[in-house]
């Protein structure tokens, strides 16, 4: 290739001589040489490909493209001197290119079309969610009358995975929250010498708000995402379809045990979180504020009403329903691609946390109106 260029135009014989490897690995090199090769502006020329060593369909495509370009300028390519194999390949590629009438143009939707499309999608999703809830309610009522269809095994495995296996992380997080809260509030209280009031503040805030909220957020990340991903993969794998053809509804086998399981475990996890949150606060008040274990435990039942504990625990089942139903719904909504499993898992967690906080705000308003 050093002595003779891979593309060379011989003006005496009006021949374009092609040499070397006409392959896809070499194509950009060929294209750049072709761009600087000067070709006649008029008359006929011929291609000579006798000394082409290797040619593949990309090389054939380049030759045909060159011919087309010359054709448009009014230069006829009269003759091809190619090996038999190469000519055959060129003929095939030419035939296929003739079928290429250009890609059907993809129309770019206007802004209004995009807004409209998104609105309809959102409304459809809302409708699907309501249909999902409706169907679940129907299935749940049906199950009440057919206790033999209850899936105790699924239920216990859900309780084990969402509840028992979540204990360590919930304990650790709640303990840390208790420590942090005590530290921040303790700094203020110490200024007024009101150290002992840390017990009131900590008890109320942890039992009423922090424990249920932190637990629910943690569980929606741990469990809600797992629900979406596992049900989504089953959907992709047609396992959901298989269940439907066997007369077992996915709701009965997969969804209701998950929802009921979380409904049972989330309040229990909240109690667990209460314990460790208060424990964290107690350790910190002992260290930082010098409140003895005895004083802390003595004051706790006197100032923190049972009501706070019950309100905290009472929110948990609602949060559980939100997390589990959103998680399962997003799983069912997965559409035929791995990408969609990822998207729906993200949505499931984001929506669950969003609605948990909205629900918590609504609870606060209701309780303050009720003067609880």
């Amino acid at each position, binding site marked *: 290739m050093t002595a003779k260029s891979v593309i060379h135009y011989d003006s005496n014989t009006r021949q374009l001589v092609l040499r070397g490897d006409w*392959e*896809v*690995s070499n*194509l*950009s090199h060929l*294209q750049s040489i072709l761009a600087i090769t000067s070709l006649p502006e008029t008359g006929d020329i011929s291609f000579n490909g006798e000394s082409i060593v*290797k040619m*593949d*369909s*990309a090389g054939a*495509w380049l030759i045909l*493209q060159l011919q087309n370009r010359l054709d448009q300028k009014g230069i006829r390519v009269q003759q091809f001197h190619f090996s038999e*194999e190469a000519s*055959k*390949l060129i003929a*095939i*590629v030419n035939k*296929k*290119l003739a*079928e*290429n*009438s*250009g*890609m*059907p143009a*993809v129309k770019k939707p206007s802004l209004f079309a995009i807004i409209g499309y998104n609105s309809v999608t959102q409304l459809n999703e809302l409708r699907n969610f309501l249909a999902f809830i409706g169907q679940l309610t129907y299935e749940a009522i049906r199950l009440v009358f057919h206790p033999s269809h209850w899936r105790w095994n699924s239920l216990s495995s859900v309780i084990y995975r969402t509840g028992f296996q979540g204990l360590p992380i919930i304990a650790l997080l709640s303990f840390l929250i208790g420590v942090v809260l005590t530290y921040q509030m303790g700094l203020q209280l110490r200024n007024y010498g009101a150290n002992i009031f840390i017990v009131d503040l900590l008890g109320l805030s942890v039992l009423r708000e922090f424990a249920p909220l932190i637990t629910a957020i943690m569980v929606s990340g741990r469990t809600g995402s797992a629900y979406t991903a596992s049900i989504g993969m089953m959907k992709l794998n047609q396992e959901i379809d298989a269940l439907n053809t066997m007369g077992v509804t996915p709701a009965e086998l997969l969804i209701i045990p998950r929802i009921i399981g979380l409904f049972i475990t989330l309040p229990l996890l909240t109690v667990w979180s209460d314990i460790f949150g208060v424990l964290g606060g107690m350790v910190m008040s002992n260290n930082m504020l010098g409140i003895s274990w005895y004083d802390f435990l003595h004051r706790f039942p006197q100032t923190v009403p049972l009501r706070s504990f019950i309100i905290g625990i009472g929110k948990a089942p609602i949060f559980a329903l939100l997390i589990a139903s959103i998680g399962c719904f997003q799983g069912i909504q997965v*559409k*035929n*691609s*791995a*990408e969609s499993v990822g998207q729906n898992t993200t949505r499931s967690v984001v929506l669950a946390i969003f609605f948990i906080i909205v629900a918590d705000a609504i609870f606060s308003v209701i309780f303050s109106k009720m003067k609880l």
Partner: protein
Amino acid sequence: MTHDDTIIEIKDLTTKMGGALVHKGLNLSIKRGEVLGIVGGSGTGKTTLMREILHLTKPVSGSIRVFGYEITTATPKVLLEIQKRWGVLFQSNALFSSLTLLENVMFPLKEHAHLSANTVRDLALLKILMAGLPLDSASKYPAELSGGMQKRGGLARAIALDPELLFLDEPTAGLDPNTATGFDELILNLQSTMGLTIVMVTHDLDSLWKVTNRVAFLGDGAVLGVEHMSTLVKNPNPLIQEFFGGQRGRAAEQGYSDENT
């Protein structure tokens, strides 16, 4: 291009899967330009063999040479050179579900063939047409295509870089007979125009008769015979007789000889 040199050479290959020996000293050589079928009963390690050639599974011992390079100990650099020269159609197509068909076919070109965006697009469209797909399928996602079209799409991606060597894992499995026949013809067509060497694992007796030059029969952890189908079916080995001697085997043979008389 000489037609009798060896493109893949497998020597004394031993493979263990879950504690059991799948291959016990397997030998096989594949010549340039041929279409080699690999058959054998379930669990005889056909797909494992292909995965080993593709460097996806590591054998316990033995040597596999592809294009003259030892694949079992190849450095990443050598491996990349080899990988650019082969194309693979997996059993379940393995089209990337998040990309359109066109993007799927463009993928290897973009990664390995430093070309302008327009060239990549045009070459990918050419490959889609060569695989016998209509143009409007190019902008669709794999999930929107039928099973047969997905196979063709997978094939279009496998031939995107104009490979010398093409691996097909059960190319006609799950296709209706009509589509399967069309696919066989497509493979033959591509093989003759592009001068490919094809290694196909298949159970489809019709494809074996129609497409392959030679067939390697796997059984008892070794290759029991590598011959043209017409010779292989006369092999007295009981495993081979059992495999081809059934009603379906004879029907396929009958159909083939009818076609050629």
